[in-house]
């Protein structure tokens, strides 16, 4: 179905156009790498597409110890930033896992969250890092933790007329994302495991992708990791707990039992990878 393209340059205008009832339903587009395919195939129908690319959201900045990523910042810029590489290595692992370089020039964090693809490589690490999504609507801003924002496959907490403005991510120099795929390059992950160690008392976070109904944290595994440098036996127990707790799906990419089998291995590898850069590690 053909659509018209609107390219607002201010947030106010974008919100107004999104809410404008004339001209039929509107959908917001960031990089478009996922949404354009759905529009082509008729999985999403909208007569109006509101592009966010001219909004002043194509930037990143540090606020204290947190990275604030504008929702339309392309993945490639995130992955190339030296400070991000040093302070959020797990985020870089995940961003580098997405598509090809040319795709990463278009694809954005906001788009990835907003589309809430079940096999997203990015949502698990945002969960593990305890990221917060900042939404903006006519009525103002609200901040939602990623775990509550992504509700289910292709379902988010985004209300009609709302947009994702930015994502705030506390730094975690000890963090990692690992995945398993049929083909290493440019494939959809069968399972992804993200881990991050926070310096606050909350300790380790472990999140899984490729599970039902959406990427999820496994608090049972987190509790078992407990110490800053858990030993092999502790990691193994946590890995087993993660494998037992999550609900897996059988689909064209993997069976439920294979996914479950992968989790324990990937949790072990993710923890080891996260600790690799630490002095004495």
């Amino acid at each position: 179905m053909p659509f018209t393209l609107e390219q607002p340059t201010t947030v106010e205008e974008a919100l107004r156009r999104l809410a404008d009832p004339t001209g039929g339903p509107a959908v917001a587009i960031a990089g478009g790498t996922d949404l354009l395919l759905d529009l082509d195939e008729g999985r999403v129908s909208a007569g109006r597409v509101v592009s966010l690319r001219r909004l002043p959201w194509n930037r990143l900045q540090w606020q204290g110890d947190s990275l604030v990523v504008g929702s339309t910042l392309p993945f490639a810029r995130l992955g190339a930033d030296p400070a991000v590489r040093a302070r959020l290595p797990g985020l870089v692992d995940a961003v580098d896992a997405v598509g090809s370089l040319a795709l990463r020039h278009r694809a954005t964090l906001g788009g990835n969250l907003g589309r809430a693809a079940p096999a997203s490589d990015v949502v698990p690490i945002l969960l593990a890092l305890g990221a917060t999504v900042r939404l903006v609507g006519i009525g103002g801003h609200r901040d939602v933790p990623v775990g509550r924002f992504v509700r289910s496959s292709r379902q988010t907490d985004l209300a009609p007329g709302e947009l994702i403005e930015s994502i705030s991510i506390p730094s975690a120099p000890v963090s990692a994302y690992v995945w398993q795929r049929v083909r290493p390059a440019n494939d959809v992950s069968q399972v992804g495991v993200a881990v991050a160690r926070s310096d606050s008392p909350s300790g380790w976070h472990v999140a899984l992708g490729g599970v039902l109904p959406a990427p999820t944290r496994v608090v049972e595994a987190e509790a078992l990791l407990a110490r800053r440098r858990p030993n092999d036996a502790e990691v193994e127990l946590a890995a087993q707990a993660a494998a037992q707790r999550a609900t897996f799906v059988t689909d064209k990419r993997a069976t439920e039992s294979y996914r479950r089998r992968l989790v324990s291995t990937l949790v072990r590898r993710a923890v080891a990878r996260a600790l690799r850069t630490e002095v004495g590690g």
Partner: protein
Amino acid sequence: MTGPLTLAINGAHPRTVDVPDDERLLDTLRWRLGMKGTKEGCRTGDCGACTVLVDGETTLSCLTLSREVDGSKVTTIEGIADDPEGRKVQAAFEAEEALQCGYCTPGFIVALTGVRRELGPEASTAALVDGLQGNLCRCTGYLAILRAVERVREAPR
């Protein structure tokens, strides 16, 4: 809806055409401007055959709405040789016979030119290969393309 689109293509003076809002850059180039060197492959962003440079950055033209890049500089395979780096890449593909059916070739040449520019002349082969993962070739088995990558890396500046 249609609207004006102004592009400076391959170093030429900016040119304005009227395009539908939902038209892709790939189709604007191929069917509206008659520049068919940019190849249409999967149209889902998975093959890289349609790669062009938009303001110097490797871009999948099949996933790009033309009007979103209004005002940009676009480089296609037809103009890649005007860029000394692009000419070097093109010459390397020819010398190494890094092509067979040739359908992926424009995308590869443009992509390697863009990736080299993005990562710098010292970029390792591994980094360049990483940047080419989204360009698929079904004929050569990629090894001749890797030899072309090596040739470009070793060529005098």
